[in-house]
C-alpha cells in the first residue's frame, strides 16, 4: 500500500467533491452555497496543486495545469464574493451569486478533467 499514492488520490478527489458540493443548488440563492465549503474547496485545491508539482512526465504537467485552472476559478469566485460584501458594499445580489457559482462551475470542470486523467492513468498502470 503506497502511502504517497493514497494521499495524492485523496486530495484530488476531495478537491473535486468539495467543489461539486459548493456548486450544487440554485445558482441565485445564497442559502444553497455555503461559504465554508468554498473556503474548504480553495484550501484543498491549493494543497492538491502543490502536491502535483515536480512530476516531470506529460501526465504530471497536464494534471498540474488543470489544477492551476481550478485554483484560478475558485480564487476568482472568492474575490468576487469578498469584493461584493466588503469593498463595493453591494452585498450578495442574485447576479453576484450567480457569478460566483458560474466560476465554481468552471473550476468543477477543471477538477473533473483532472480526475478523469488520474483515473485513466490508474487504469493503465494497474493493467
Amino acid at each position, binding site marked *: 500500500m503506497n502511502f504517497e499514492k493514497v494521499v495524492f488520490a485523496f486530495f484530488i478527489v476531495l478537491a473535486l467533491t468539495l467543489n461539486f458540493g459548493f456548486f450544487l443548488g440554485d445558482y441565485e440563492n445564497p442559502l444553497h452555497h455555503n461559504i465554508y465549503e468554498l473556503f474548504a474547496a480553495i*484550501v484543498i485545491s*491549493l*494543497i492538491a496543486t502543490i502536491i502535483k*508539482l515536480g512530476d516531470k512526465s506529460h501526465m504530471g504537467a497536464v494534471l498540474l495545469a488543470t489544477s492551476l485552472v481550478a485554483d484560478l476559478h475558485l480564487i476568482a469566485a472568492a474575490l468576487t*464574493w*469578498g469584493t461584493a*460584501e*466588503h469593498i463595493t458594499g453591494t452585498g450578495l445580489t442574485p447576479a453576484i451569486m450567480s457569478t460566483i457559482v458560474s466560476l465554481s462551475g468552471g473550476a468543477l470542470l477543471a477538477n473533473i478533467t483532472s480526475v478523469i486523467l488520474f483515473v485513466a492513468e490508474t487504469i493503465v498502470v494497474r493493467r
Partner: protein
Amino acid sequence: MNSPIFLVLKRLRYPLILLISIYSILILGFTLIPGQDDQGNTWYMSFFHAFYFVSFMGSTIGFGEIPYAFNEAQRAWAIVGIFFSVIAWLYSIGTLLKILRDPTFQKVLTQSAFENSVNRLNFPFYIICGYGDTGSVLAHELASLDIQTVVLDWKQERIDYLDIDEPDMDIPAFCADASIPDNLLSAGLTHPKCVGVISLTDDDQTNLKISIAVKLLNKNVQLISRAETMEAADNMASFDTDHIINPYEVFAKRLALAIRSPGAFLIYDWFTSPDSTLREEPLDPPKGWWVVCGYGRFGKAVDRYLRYEGIRTVIVEAFPEYNAAPKSVITGSGTEAITLKDAGIGKAVGIVAGTDNDANNLSIIVTAHELKVGKTLFSVARQNNESNSKIFEAADLSMIMQPACIIAREILALIKSPLLAEFLSLVRRQKRSWVNILISRVSGLYETENLNTWTIKVNDMDSRMIREILAVGDINVADMMRNPRDRQLQLNCIPLLIKHKKQFRLLPETQDSLSNGDEILFCGDHDSMHLMHWSMSNVNAFQYIACGEEYFSGYLWKFFK
C-alpha cells in the same frame, strides 16, 4: 520541468503545504469564534476580515485588533495563531534559502545563464577551450579587435579571473571540462554564428579529444588546436584539423629564420606582433657554436632547426636518459658555471635556456653572461609563466620565447587575415635582396605608427552597381588604393599579395587588374585601412574611386535625371 523555477517549487512543496494548512485553520477559527462589536452584539468575523488579520499576524506586522477589539476567545486563538504562523513562515523561508544556496542548484542556474547568453549571441564568435596564459592573451586581443569569444575552462579560479579582468566585451564563460562534448554544445558549437573553436588546454590528449568532437559535431567551423608533441600533432592532422600550432616548433622555426634571413624575420615580426613598432635594427643571431640547455620538446626543436642552419650545438641536460639526449650531452642543469664551461661556453656565440623552469632559465643566462663578460653572447630564454615577464625583460636577453604569446599571435594572424599566413610563408622563401626591398618600402610608408594588415575581397555580390562596374572590366590595384575623399591622392598602403583563383601573386604592380572573387592583402596605417574598407562597402565611394563620378542613386534624383 527542468527550469530552475520548477526545481525550487518542487523542493518547497512541504513548506508550502504546511503554510497553507496553518493559514486555513487559523482563518477558519477566526470566522467561527463569536466576537463582539462595539455595541456588545455578537458578531462573527467574515472570511475577508479573518484573512486580513491572519495575513498581518503571520508576517509579523501586527496592525491591531480590527474592526472591533477582540474578546478573550478570539485572543486565545490569536495566541495559537502567532506561534504557528510565524514558525511556518520561518520554515518556508529557511527552506527557500537552503535551496538557493545549494551548490548543485547554483550550478544549474549558472549553466542556464551561460547557455542563454550563448544562444543570444548575434555575431560570429570563437569558442576558446582553456583559459590559461594563452587563452587570456588571445581573448583580450580578440576583444580589442571586436571579435566575440566564448570561454570554457575546467578550473573555476580561471573563470573567476576572467570575471575580474574582463575586456570591454562581454564574454560568456563557464567552468566545465571542454573535452566533454555536451559542454562544447552548451558553449554553442552548433550555433549558426559559431565560426571557430580554438583548443588551448595544456594537455595534448584533451586538445585531441576536443578536436575530434568538433570535427564530428560541426564540420563547418574552423578548428585551431595547440599540440606540444609531434604524435599529437600528426594525430590531429589526420582528421583535418585546420591549424595545429606547436609553440616550440614555431619558435625554433623563427629562430632559424632569424639566422638565415634576418630581413625575413623582421617582416615576420612586424606583421604578427599585435603592437609592433618598426624596429631599427634587425636581429642578427650569429652562426657558430651554440649551447642549448634543456633537451625537452623545446630543446629538441631548437637543436634540430639550428643544426639544419649549419650551427654546431652542444646540449646540456639534467636527465639525459629520460629525454633521449644524444651521446655528446653534458649532464647537468646548466645553472652552474662548471657545467657551462664543460659545454664550451668560452667559444660559444649563442646560448638557449630552454628548460621548463623559469628560475633555472634565468639562472643559466645570468651565469653565462658572467662567464662571457665583455663578449657578446646571443641569449635566448624560454619563459613559461606570463607572471615572470618583468624579470625576463630585465635580464637583457636577445630573444624571449613565450609559448603563450607565440600561440596567441599565430592564431591572431590566422583569424585577422587568412592571406597573411600565405604571404609570410612565401616571404620565407625569397632571396635576401627581395626581402630588403620590401623592408625599405614598408619602413618608407611611415615611422612610428602601428602596422596594420587587412584583406579586401573583391566580391560584392549584393551590389548591382559594383557588379556593373566590374563587368566593364577596369578596376585595378591603383584604383583600390585611391583615397575616397580625393581620388588624386593615394592611400598610405602597400599591396602585398593577390589571390586570384587559388593562384598567389606577391607584391603586385599597381596596374594589375582585379576581377570578381580576388582577394588582396594590404598593409598600411590605420586610417588607410578604414578608408579602404569604407570605399569597398559604400557604393557611392566605390563608384567615385573606380570611375571618378559621384552617382546619386536615390529614387528622387533618378526621376529628375
